[in-house]
């Protein structure tokens, strides 16, 4: 009985094999970068303009990073749909 079970498994595994290679989809080169470091306000500064310039830089950093994150999410969703479409 055990031998028969093993035999059935082997037959099933044999039938499940499809010699078609599928490569993992590559990502756009622009998405390979990581989010940059936040900018620090120079210590000892008393000028408001310098402080809000740094804050603006950090906002821009965040928005860039958000765009990157959204692009990754879109990439995953699209590639998943394409991958699951091939059966």
């Amino acid at each position, binding site marked *: 009985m055990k031998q028969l079970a093993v035999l059935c498994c*082997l037959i099933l595994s044999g*039938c499940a094999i499809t010699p078609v290679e599928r490569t993992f*989809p590559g990502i*756009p080169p622009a998405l390979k970068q990581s989010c940059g470091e936040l900018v*620090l306000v120079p210590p000892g500064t008393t000028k408001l303009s310098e402080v809000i310039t740094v804050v603006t830089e950090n906002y821009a950093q965040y928005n860039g990073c958000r765009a990157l994150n959204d*692009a990754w999410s879109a990439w995953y969703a699209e590639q998943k749909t394409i991958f699951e479409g091939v059966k």
Partner: protein
Amino acid sequence: MALLAPTHWLLWESNNMWLINFLPDWIFYLLLIIGILGIIISMFLKEIPVINRYQTPIWLLGILLTILGVWFAGGISKDQEYRERISALQLRVAEAEKKSAEVNTQIEYVYRDRVQVVEKVRYQVISAIREHSTSMDANCTVIPTAVEILNRATQPQSRSSEKKK
């Protein structure tokens, strides 16, 4: 039930079907025909007195060749079916890869466009700050403690790890 059919033994990984791949298909069909002919001839051999002693070996050989022929014919048929399925799958994979590359181009374009907008806004805001910096700095002085507190917010990881220690 279909999985237990003898033909599946031959389909045990299409790469290992060496006999079907090695020999031309017609040999197996020829085996089948010879087998069937052997069975039919063995039926008539009973009537012929001199050679009727060969009736049983020819009948057995016919049966054996028929079984082998059917077995391999089934294998060839399944092999062909699998080859067609593989070709269709390869085609779908190629289409998917093409579509995947198109999607990548589109996503990259959207991303670069958004980054350009971010940079444009950044440039505009910084220009506006520079334009109004004199009045801003004259009306408001930032104390060093405020700067120190603000800078702390940029490193949440190091602060939390310090707390843990």
